[in-house]
């Protein structure tokens, strides 16, 4: 008995002595540190390029007075309408996508036949796999003409609402069309996270509700929704993060102007988004104009960072305890869904777990 600790001690000392071991540990720590370096690099290089344009005098600098940045007294007056347009387009997209996404998530988690659930989830994930440039082409060719009659109708009959006022687009290149395509693109993200959260509802709660005679919808309303609320909120926020940074589809569809406009059916006077503005003007911009565009990119970075942080805060926060805990395990069983599980669903668009262990996802 007395020899045992001694042996253990000697072997652990031997483990520490192996050079391969130490090198590998060092390597993996270095990789982890390199993540910090890369992110610091992203911020640093953007700031280095952007500062000259932000600090420059926009009314006297020859480079900034003309071309893509012409007509703006300062960097902030240039970026403000763009930031507004980014948020505005993303918000419309979210308003369109959220109800549908939650419906789909609910369908897959609680309504569809169990055997089909994994497959149906895969179909929705396929939507996430389609490259954004393909959605852009599709938006130009299919969505623009398809939505045109609806936009004319909205303008004619609901034109008294400021959003739908103005002269209606003739080609369909309005912010509404862009938002519809954006909605299609954020749909899979909101769906997959909401689905994960819905599936984590404690089975006992669901069965208890059903046993009390609740219909399926009442069961969902009473057990799934209260449990999943924070997860769904953060799913929507992560969807917002994706919509904010989306470039190609918007750049290809919307016919923009750098103005602050709430109108969604117009053409050539739609609010422009930051990402799309960069994509469209970067090739033709020169010198300080490029720096100004990089500055707007920095603003976009900060905005989407803030949205992502809030989303992750919401999901890692414990949901409020039920007001009337039912029995002993009431509080325990409504604990927050494991943030790691849920976020994994957002980080890897298609979680490898769902591929390898379909049964663990579809229950």
């Amino acid at each position, binding site marked *: 008995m007395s020899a045992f600790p001694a042996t253990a001690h000697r072997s652990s000392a031997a483990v520490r002595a*192996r050079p391969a071991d130490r090198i590998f540990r060092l390597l993996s720590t270095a990789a*982890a540190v390199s993540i910090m370096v890369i992110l610091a690099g992203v911020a640093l290089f953007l700031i280095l390029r952007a500062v000259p344009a932000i600090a420059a005098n926009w009314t006297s600098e020859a480079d900034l007075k003309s071309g893509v940045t012409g007509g703006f007294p300062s960097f902030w007056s240039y970026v403000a309408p763009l930031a507004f347009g980014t948020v505005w387009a993303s918000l419309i997209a979210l308003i369109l996508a959220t109800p549908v996404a939650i419906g789909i998530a609910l369908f897959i988690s609680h309504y569809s036949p169990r055997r089909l659930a994994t497959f149906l989830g895969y179909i929705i994930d*396929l939507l996430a796999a389609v490259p954004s440039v393909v959605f852009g082409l599709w938006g130009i060719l299919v969505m623009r003409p398809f939505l045109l009659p609806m936009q004319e109708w909205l303008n004619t009959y609901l034109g008294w609402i400021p959003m739908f006022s103005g002269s209606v687009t003739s080609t369909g290149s309005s912010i509404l069309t862009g938002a519809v395509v954006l909605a299609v693109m954020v749909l899979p993200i909101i769906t997959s996270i909401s689905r994960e959260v819905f599936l984590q509802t404690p089975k006992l709660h669901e069965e208890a509700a059903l046993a009390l005679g609740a219909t399926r919808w009442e069961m969902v309303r009473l057990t799934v929704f209260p449990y999943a609320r924070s997860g769904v909120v953060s799913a929507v926020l992560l969807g917002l993060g994706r919509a904010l940074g989306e*470039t190609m589809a918007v750049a*290809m569809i919307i016919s923009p102007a750098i103005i602050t406009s709430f109108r969604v059916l117009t053409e050539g006077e739609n609010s422009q988004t930051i990402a799309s503005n960069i994509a469209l003007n970067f090739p033709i911009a020169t010198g300080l104009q490029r720096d100004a565009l990089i500055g707007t990119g920095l603003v976009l970075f900060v905005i989407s960072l803030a949205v992502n942080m809030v989303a992750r805060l919401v999901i890692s926060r414990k949901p409020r305890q039920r007001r009337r805990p039912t029995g002993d395990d009431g509080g325990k069983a409504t604990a927050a869904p494991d943030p790691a599980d849920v976020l994994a669903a957002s980080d890897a668009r298609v979680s490898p777990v769902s591929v390898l262990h379909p049964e663990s996802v579809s229950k």
Partner: protein
Amino acid sequence: MSAAASTVARPAGRNRYSTGSLPRRINLYTLPGSFILAAAVMGLLGFNWFGLAAFTALIYLAAISGLSLVVENRRRAMDRFIRGLVTSAFLLALLPLVSTLWTVVSKGIGVLSWEFIGTSGGGTTINPDTLELVTSSGALQAIVGTLEITGLATLFSVPIGLLTAIYLVEYAAPTHWLRRTVNFLVDVMTGIPSIVAGLFAFSLFTLILGPKAFSGLSAAVALSVLMIPTVVRSCEEMLRLVPADLREAAYALGVTKFVTIVKVVIPTAIAGIATGITLAIARVIGETAPIFMAASFTDAFNGNPLAGPMQTLPVMAYTGYKFPGQDIALSNSQAWGAALLLVLLVVVLNLVARIIAAIFAPKTSR
């Protein structure tokens, strides 16, 4: 018919507890009925497929909840209404998917040929007979560019991503400051808009190499920024699935940590890691904006990722539409060809990921 049969099979007389319920196969009657009604409405308004589907759904929803309200009760009606609603939501999401794929395939299939894949576009020659300027078509330069840039990005991100995941799972103590920081930063990185990654690569290379520093390498750096967090998260997830028993068994045999990780942990998780990496590649291969920023675009063939603009499939699809050449129709059709090739690549990568997962069945299952 079946409703009648089931009534017969049950005890005669109305059961007090099951009265007021619609026949089990009510959907089989309501749905075709709604469809016919919707078709009639379409006949009056002018036919279109989306209208037909929309009206079918609306009439079905109204009919099923109305029937249920009359025969059953308000709660059941609500239940049936919601069931119809979420099913329609799912079908609604299928529309853009099917429409997108159909558009890409139907537009691109005519362009796709071995010649399109095998030749490099953009060169102009003068037709000796008509003396017209002929622009050659082809996507070879874009295919090579896509493969090189994505390959380089994979080469950069997989070691960093995998090693970071190993650090997070195997080495770091749960409360260690570095682990918490890295975890947080990986989350931050996931949220980087793709165009910002492109701007970063552009800024980095222009600050070092001067203006016009467009290169495939720069685009690969941009893609790595987008790819690393995905790789870290999926590898981390797979490493965590490896049972602690396996590690403990190895340690008990006196195996060092390094050998345990390389010979026990990684082989156990390799299917998941490979799947995750393949899906990460599939994700970044379709990125347009960062490549467009960092590698610019060109019609000329450039096989050297270290210097000069490089064309890729997504950028080709974009520029073919946004900056068409002299022959606009040709540029547009080239764009669709590139889009179809890109979609095929993504689909193949997704399939490969699933085949890897299927062949190397999880060794963790007992």
